């Protein structure tokens, strides 16, 4: 559990650094013996880090199983998800990583999606070149927090799921890594160039920004973006990120306006902006993020342009002696058609740091009749068992 962090950290640092505690009992010989042991172990570490084994493979990932009871609706075991992650490494210069997501739908059919598949070329101490489909560096929730065993709630904050205000993935290239310390502060960066996203009507008729990375830019200029983050305190990160480019829309009979043609691809201006914050102090974990995507007008289409924006703030406290973790989260999502908000409360039980049972209650509200008719203001009780491996 968390208590092992300071124990192990203390064990390592104390052996190496602070032998002064019992200074009166220490002889030069015993000190030399300790240094020799550490030195041998350090050499062993070096040998292990530089082993002759040039390539290798690892299967990691996570899975979750969920149940929900919706106000004015039914209760169901409604989540079966299995997400294997494959790592293949060649020497210390290259690593491939890919994640599949298997889910089961209401008809019992299995759905498979490629979350990401990218090659990482380790160019130097500060730079990794990434090529393929990768989780968008814009923001943090989608990139780093969404896996079920990491997310402290059984659901994503409003607007941070698929087809919301957050950005899912990109197909393209990126450079990223950690930077040298400046004023004793660590920082990291990511810049990327990727195919343009798509603006369309979703299956339910809602207008959406489809940010699932695809293998065509549909003739539009590429999206360029990045993220920069600093760590002003231990266990704290503040990040700012964004992207700019064009977004592509294919005109349909339902969306065409003025002189456009059906199936004609048109372009609109597009940009995104995100600020994220995370801080862990003792057993208190605080996370917050604001993201927005802006889509410009095009007179050939009647799909409404505007802002898709969402934000959330979350606090969780681990009571390690009982393996319990109460969590509270507020999230808010709006787009040109809907505004909604949610307060969610959860209580987690940690069988282990990567095996977690969650029970949560969501209090939802929406501000227009369409959303209310779709049940988006219905409260929900959720339960989930999640584990990472």
């Amino acid at each position: 559990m968390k208590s092992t962090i300071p124990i192990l950290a203390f064990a390592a640092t104390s052996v190496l650094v602070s032998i002064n505690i019992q200074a009166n009992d220490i002889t030069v010989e015993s000190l030399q013996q300790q240094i020799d042991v550490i030195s041998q172990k350090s050499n062993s570490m070096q040998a292990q880090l530089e082993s002759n084994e040039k390539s290798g493979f690892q299967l990691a990932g996570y899975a979750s199983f969920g149940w929900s009871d919706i106000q004015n609706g039914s209760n169901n075991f409604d989540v079966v998800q299995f997400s294997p992650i494959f790592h293949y490494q060649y020497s210390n210069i290259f690593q491939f990583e890919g994640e599949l997501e298997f889910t089961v739908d209401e008809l019992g059919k299995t759905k498979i999606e490629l979350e990401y598949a990218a090659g990482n070329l380790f160019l130097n101490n500060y730079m990794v070149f990434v090529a393929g489909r990768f989780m968008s560096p814009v923001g943090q929730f989608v990139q780093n927090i969404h896996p079920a065993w990491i997310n402290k709630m059984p659901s994503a904050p409003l607007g941070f799921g698929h087809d919301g205000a957050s950005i899912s993935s990109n197909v393209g290239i990126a450079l990223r890594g950690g930077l040298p310390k400046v004023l004793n502060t660590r920082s990291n960066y990511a810049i990327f160039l990727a195919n343009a996203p798509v603006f369309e009507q979703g299956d339910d008729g809602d207008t959406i920004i489809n940010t699932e990375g695809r293998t065509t830019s549909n003739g539009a200029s590429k999206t360029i973006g990045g993220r920069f983050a600093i760590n002003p305190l231990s266990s704290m990160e503040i990040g700012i990120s964004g992207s700019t480019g064009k977004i592509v829309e294919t005109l349909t009979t339902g969306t065409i306006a003025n002189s456009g043609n059906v199936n004609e691809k048109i372009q609109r201006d597009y940009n995104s902006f995100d600020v994220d914050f995370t801080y862990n102090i003792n057993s208190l974990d605080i996370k917050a993020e604001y993201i927005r995507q802006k889509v410009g007008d095009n007179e050939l289409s009647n799909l409404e342009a505007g802002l898709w924006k969402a934000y959330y703030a979350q606090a969780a406290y681990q009571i390690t002696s009982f393996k319990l973790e109460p969590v509270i989260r507020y999230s808010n999502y709006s787009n040109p058609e809907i505004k909604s908000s949610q307060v969610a409360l959860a209580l987690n039980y940690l069988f282990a740091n990567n095996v977690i049972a969650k029970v949560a209650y969501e209090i939802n509200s929406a501000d227009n009749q369409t959303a209310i008719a779709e049940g988006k203001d219905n409260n929900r009780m959720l339960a989930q068992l999640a584990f990472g491996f």
Partner: protein
Amino acid sequence: MKTITKSSIIFLILSIGINLNAQNIDIAKGAELWADTCIRCHNVREPADLSKRAWKYSMNHMRVRAGLTGDETKNVLAFILFSKTEND
């Protein structure tokens, strides 16, 4: 043309940064980073959770996701391997 310009800028930056020297491993720094960095996103995984080999691959994954330098990654890995007992 714009795309070519953007790509050129990226690859220019890429080519500048090659061949920077790495430092020797530092287990104490690795311990500090392990305690400070992992917890920002997720519950800390104990050294015993994964095999030595799996830790090597996981740490390269985390180097990309958490924005660690190559040296920082090696230090954290060294600390984890140092902390594992013979039976882990």
